[in-house]
């Protein structure tokens, strides 16, 4: 691990001679793609008169901004504490259940926030099982005699989002703790540093990039969440955008707020990057030697176990158990929904297609950042995340205009040149949906691959170059094997996110194309939750396989400690 004040001097990878290569052209295309929805939003925003703003600034934005900031602060603290804490325990200690918990801690990834919110609202409601049981226990008659925290509140939203989004931090933090040069940690221990001090002064600062990336992904999800926030009555900026659009029929005003939010988020991301500009974190890549994990016993072991079980229970087991019960009721009464297979197939196909494209594009982004001489290569990496900073619904609308314009242009050309109509090629087929997913989740794939690439020391590139290896050979022979876990992890995360995605799917899908998520939404919208439970459970189940696979790829190899 090197931390140098002047990164250019020692660790910057060798760059290609000054010429615009194929990589640069590809990345320009990527820039175009990710900026497409922003262009769409600008198109809407400039049509607005802005006459809503006095009202918004007086009555809406202050509350919404404050609520959003509190939500982000709360969720940020929660995901960082849970994610880093669990990762540190799993990486550094041996206690009962550790081997199962190591991968089980990822399971909340498969639960969409809107399903989580609904499940908890039902389970924790005064007439739900928990409060009913508590009343029976204490011999209380009326629900009003029992004090119980209100889940429909900002606190409730922070709690729920924290427990379902922490895996975004746990995954990279754990990987980093596992890969951290043991010498640093062992040196700290040898010098008499206790576990708490080693964690706070050595391990935590070194893990900062991973924690920052993971936390910002979780925060974007929290900021853009509409399902859970609306359900829990939390008036965030995203809800304000949504209200302006849907209730006041002003897509123009909504686009203006969305662009404002985008600028604020982007500024935050840039500030965070500048904050660690002068730090470089390069792992040695090898895993042959690892700081010996500490064996825990007795009360300490039980505490460590409990600390890791709680997030899994709250973020996964409770909502899943709820879905199983509801789905079982439905199946007992009516059997399996006849179209279930079609919904699964549609969900999986569209998610799979998007994942493949997202990984390919993510590779372009990550490699541009590493090798391009172009000045904008750094900007590209930051831009690639833009789709993640806009609410999904808004992103989908932003994409509508550019995509249909292209469709109509192609159609017009075909009509005049060939005398036939092509119709709407992108928006009429699933292509628009796949592209929208890619723009939405590119931050996950490019971020993951970039992080994986960063762990490969540039000295390897230099060595390969000196021995005459070209770009392709470097990628194929040196990077590919080392990058495989990072690519697999990124792909699986994108896949699971596409499976859960709702607003984009609703707006951009072709005719007669029902997915699991859209079906759940349709049933929830008319309140027949039991009918939706089977499909909701399927989202979780289909998400499980990639998550377990993710655990296997991420945790494979020499990084597994005893226990």
């Amino acid at each position, binding site marked *: 691990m090197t931390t140098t004040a002047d990164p250019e001097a020692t660790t910057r990878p060798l760059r290609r001679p000054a010429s615009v290569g194929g990589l640069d052209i590809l990345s320009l*295309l*990527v820039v*175009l793609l990710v900026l497409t929805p922003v262009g769409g939003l600008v198109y809407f925003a400039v049509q607005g008169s802005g006459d809503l703003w006095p*009202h918004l600034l007086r*009555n809406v934005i202050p509350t919404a901004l404050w609520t959003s900031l509190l939500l982000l602060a709360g969720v940020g603290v929660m995901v960082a504490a849970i994610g880093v804490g669990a990762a540190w325990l799993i990486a550094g200690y041996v206690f009962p259940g550790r081997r199962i918990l190591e991968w089980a801690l990822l399971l909340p990834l498969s639960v969409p926030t809107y399903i989580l919110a609904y499940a908890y609202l039902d389970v924790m409601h*005064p*007439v739900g099982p928990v409060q009913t049981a508590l009343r029976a226990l204490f011999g209380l008659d009326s*629900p009003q005699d029992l004090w119980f925290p209100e889940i*429909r*509140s900002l606190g409730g939203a922070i709690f729920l989002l924290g427990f379902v989004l922490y895996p975004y931090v746990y995954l990279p933090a754990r990987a980093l703790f596992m890969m951290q040069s043991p010498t640093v940690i062992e040196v700290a221990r040898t010098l008499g540093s206790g576990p708490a001090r080693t964690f706070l002064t050595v391990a935590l600062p070194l893990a900062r990039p991973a924690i920052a990336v993971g936390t910002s992904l979780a925060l974007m999800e929290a900021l853009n969440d509409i399902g859970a926030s609306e*359900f829990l*009555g939390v008036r965030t900026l995203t809800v304000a955008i949504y*209200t302006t659009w*849907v*209730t*006041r*029929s002003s*897509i123009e005003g909504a686009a203006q707020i969305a662009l404002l939010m985008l600028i604020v988020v982007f500024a935050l991301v840039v500030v965070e990057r500048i904050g660690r500009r002068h730090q470089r974190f390069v792992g040695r890549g090898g895993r042959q030697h690892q700081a010996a994990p500490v064996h825990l016993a007795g009360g300490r072991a039980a505490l460590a176990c409990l600390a890791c079980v709680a997030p899994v229970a709250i973020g996964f087991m409770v909502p899943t158990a709820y879905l199983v019960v*509801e789905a079982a009721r439905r199946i007992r009464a009516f059997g399996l929904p006849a179209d279930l297979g079609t919904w699964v197939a549609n969900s999986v196909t569209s998610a799979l297609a998007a994942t493949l*494209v997202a990984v*390919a594009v993510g590779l372009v982004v990550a490699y541009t950042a590493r090798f391009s001489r172009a000045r904008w290569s750094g900007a590209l990496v930051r831009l690639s995340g833009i789709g993640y900073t806009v609410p999904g*619904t808004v992103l*989908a*609308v932003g994409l*509508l205009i550019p995509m*249909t314009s*292209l*469709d*109509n242009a*192609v*159609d017009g050309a075909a009509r005049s040149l060939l005398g036939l*109509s*092509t*119709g*709407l*090629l*992108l*928006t*009429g*087929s*699933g*292509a628009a949906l*796949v*592209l929208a997913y890619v723009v939405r989740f590119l931050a996950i794939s490019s971020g993951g691959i970039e992080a994986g690439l960063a762990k490969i020391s540039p000295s390897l590139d230099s060595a390969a170059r000196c021995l005459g290896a070209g770009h392709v050979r470097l990628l194929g022979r040196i990077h590919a094997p080392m990058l495989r876990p990072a690519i697999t992890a990124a792909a699986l995360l994108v896949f699971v996110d596409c499976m859960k995605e709702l607003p984009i799917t*609703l*707006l951009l*899908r*072709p*005719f*007669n194309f*029902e997915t699991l998520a859209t079906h759940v939404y*349709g*049933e929830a*919208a*008319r*309140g*027949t*939750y*039991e*009918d939706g439970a089977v499909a909701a459970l399927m989202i979780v189940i289909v998400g499980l396989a990639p998550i377990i696979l993710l655990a296997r790829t991420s945790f494979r190899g020499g990084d597994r400690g005893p226990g």
Partner: protein
Amino acid sequence: MSASTFRSAAVAVLLGLTPAVAAAAEEVNVYTSREPALIQPLLEVFTKETGITVNTIFIKDGLAQRVEAEGANSPADILSVVDYGNLIEFVDRGLTQPVKQEELDAAIPASLRDKDGHWFALSMRARVIYASKDRVTETALTYEDLADPKWKGKVCIRSGQHPYNTSLIAAMIAKDGPEAAKAWLEGVKANLARKAGGGDRDVARDILAGICDIGIANSYYVGLMRSGAGGEEQKTWGEAIKVIMPTFKDGAGSHVNVSGIAMAKNAPNRENALKLLDFMVSDEAQKLYAEANYEYPVKAGAPVDPIVADFGALKIDPLPLTEVAAHRKDASLLVDEVGFDN
């Protein structure tokens, strides 16, 4: 656009997936924000009777934007939505075309369709009062009564920004003026037992739980709950409440909203779409359509589900929906101003 875009497009063309290519068959395309399960059974009957295939996309937010963006190439023939606000927005954005059909005009009262035939209501739902069977003795109430301090800490309602509520508030503005409407909204806000939020069904559930005694919600949810369509648990919610058909204080009637349908401006299958429109007001379809969601059919004489009939006769507020619509935006601004949802 990236290379992948063109590849996907090329694949789409080769597979013949585009609507233009597929348009040769006898079909009609429906963009709907009404849930598929509510219209699918009906559309199946239509297909069986006419041999016309119905393609649907269930789109919630952005339906107007999608049709608008697709422009002249839009495959949409029929736009099906809930809330007259959406229907009027379609017309304002120039996404519809007028339809003149005797069957439609005969079946649908003039107040429930656009005067030039740009949209037609197919069913109605009333904004009613849910009240605790055990704790509320009143049997008749006005909307205005809910601002009475006697209900302090006893009222539940969903977000004031929800279209069902902005529509009711807009009617209040149209009738009593913005000042009175604001005072009413502040009074209801002061009476809330919990933060405004959740759905209409939560009003019933929270009444069962003893969190509140009274609230405003849509009529059809009672049917969905009591029939067991929403599951066994929801039956107990539905049984905990009684339905009061409220009027405004002028005594005119209950506030209703509609679900409705419009012919898209660039409908490629106009003839088939006309057949579908006619079918929708047939006795059979009106019955199926209203029953599926426990709504009131627009066609006189079409039967109402017994659960809904049990609420008592529906007396519709005669104020035209187009007049209420003019105040929708002000209603939404008022909700923010009062901080109703905070």
